[in-house]
């Protein structure tokens, strides 16, 4: 138990990509994990335990040390500012955060409104631009906001731009590029240093080949 590594993984697409990366890096992991109801998956050969969590929750598990390592999108890290070490760019799930809105529109002068899943990132972006806007926090289907007149702009993740296009929106400004990062709990980083450094070295080795 003492030498076991606990890794918090986001459910869904990032999980599959990260898992593939681990296998390619030479970790001896169970061939397939497709039971989506399972929350904890063991990889006894490597003494690794995977916790499957909501992407937004991964940094929470790692910050509190119940997971030593986590895979989290840079968007989540920017939004949450958790006290975790960000050690490796896994170069998977590449995308970016951008502002978007209906074509040929400007911000409303009287009450500029921005809808987003990322209130902190959006607030900081407009603050740095020196624009005072009202941030409306939504939990999904952000594209709806400009279409029905809730907001002039949205701040959201863009990977291919397909979703924007389908909903008749255009991108205005790129804010920050996003990819998945390997994060580590500060205590685990020291107390389990040998194990974690070896783990990172093995991943780095694979990433450098790409």
């Amino acid at each position, binding site marked *: 138990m003492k030498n076991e590594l606990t890794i918090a993984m986001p459910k869904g697409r990032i999980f599959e990509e990260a898992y593939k990366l681990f296998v390619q890096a030479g970790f001896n992991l169970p061939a397939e994990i497709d039971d989506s109801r399972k929350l904890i998956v063991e990889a006894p050969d490597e003494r690794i335990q995977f916790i499957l969590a909501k992407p937004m929750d991964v940094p929470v598990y790692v*910050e*509190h*040390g*119940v997971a030593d390592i986590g895979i989290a999108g840079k968007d989540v890290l920017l939004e949450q*500012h958790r*006290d975790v*070490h*960000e*050690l*490796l*760019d896994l170069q998977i799930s590449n995308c970016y955060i951008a502002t978007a809105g209906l074509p040929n529109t400007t911000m409303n002068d009287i009450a500029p409104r921005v809808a987003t899943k990322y209130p902190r990132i959006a607030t900081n972006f407009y603050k740095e631009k020196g624009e005072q806007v009202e941030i409306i926090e939504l939990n999904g289907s952000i594209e709806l906001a400009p279409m029905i007149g809730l907001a002039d702009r949205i701040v959201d993740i863009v990977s291919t731009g397909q979703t924007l296009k389908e909903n008749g929106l255009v991108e205005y400004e790129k804010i920050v590029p996003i990819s998945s*990062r390997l994060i580590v*709990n*500060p*205590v685990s*980083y*020291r*107390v389990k*240093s*040998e194990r974690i*450094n070896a783990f990172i070295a093995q991943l780095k080795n694979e990433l450098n080949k790409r």
Partner: protein
Amino acid sequence: MSKIQMFEKPLGMRDSFPEVNEQKEYIRLTARDFIRRKGYDFIKTPSVEYFETIGKASAIDESSLFKLVDNQGEMLVLRPDMTTPIARIAASKLLKEKNPLRLAYYADVFRAQQREGGRPAEFEQLGLELIGDFSPYADSEIIYTAIELLKDLGVEGFRITIGHAEILTAFLTNNTNNNEEVELLRQLLVEKNLVGFSQMLESMNLLEEQKDRLSKIIEFTIDSNVFSDFRQFLNDDQQYLIDQVEELQALLEFQLNDFSVVSFDFSLASHMSYYTGMLFEIHAAGSGFSIGNGGRYDELFKQFNEKVGATGFGIRVDRLLEVLPKQLMKEKRTLLLFDKGSFSKANVLAEARRNASEYVTLQYAESVSDIEAFKQIFDEVIIVSEGGSFREE
């Protein structure tokens, strides 16, 4: 904001219930005895200080300070740390009487939390300060005492990571164009955001060899205790800094039976901006957060117009509780229940048992509404009546 409920306390404030309180007392008493044997004297300072002095000198960020205003309109703060008030006392009075000065504290400090309101905003800190000594002997004394104290308290599986603020500054300054760049890179090292560090290097206007050297520091893994390799990154007039660390290492190796709890990492940077020389962090399995940190902070005394060497450490008692094995020192508790006729008899019995160092509760039976539930709390129950007393299990 919703209406405040009767049971609520201000954000981040906690009650210590009897069991936790006893564990804290155990830590306090054990540590106190240990620390005094090392020649340190305990000290208390006011809970409230001036913002103008302690508030500004403290390394704690202003947004974390609890501020209040006194009846003269002066801005006050609840003390956010103990090092700064101790520096104030040492500079203004105690150093004139004893130099070098060894002081210790066990005190509540107050830091408003930015996020997740339940996190403690008031917590006990336990620490030492050795003031008036620039030598590596003082640094090794502080680190050695921290290690021995943790062992004495029964903490297992902890690690001490030692860095050096001045070496890091020298290294960053040698390889960048200005202070602004140094600060940007240092901040990323404080957060240990190595991805950000590499990206920042790319975006800065630096020579390729500078970038190469800078990226070395994050590859210098924490267990390579080879300092001589690091000498190449420092100028001739900076080599003495490595000498200092080598001397510190030699002293610690002499004092410690097991050197494996210590490792060196020159990329270690602290959010406490006043550290000037060696600095260290303490991590232990069982808590997700660092349990303590320390270092040399000669710079702080400049704010009190003194040129003094000072080094010390502080440990958070709440985090210590998380990593300590649960105390098995449960005392046996006895309940003596008496009725109207047996009061004097019960008294005699209670005093006799207390004299034998037992923990005895004396209670008039009629006053207890749920006598069975009350009895359950105790290890032993004795019912005293006029006829005689008998034990109940």
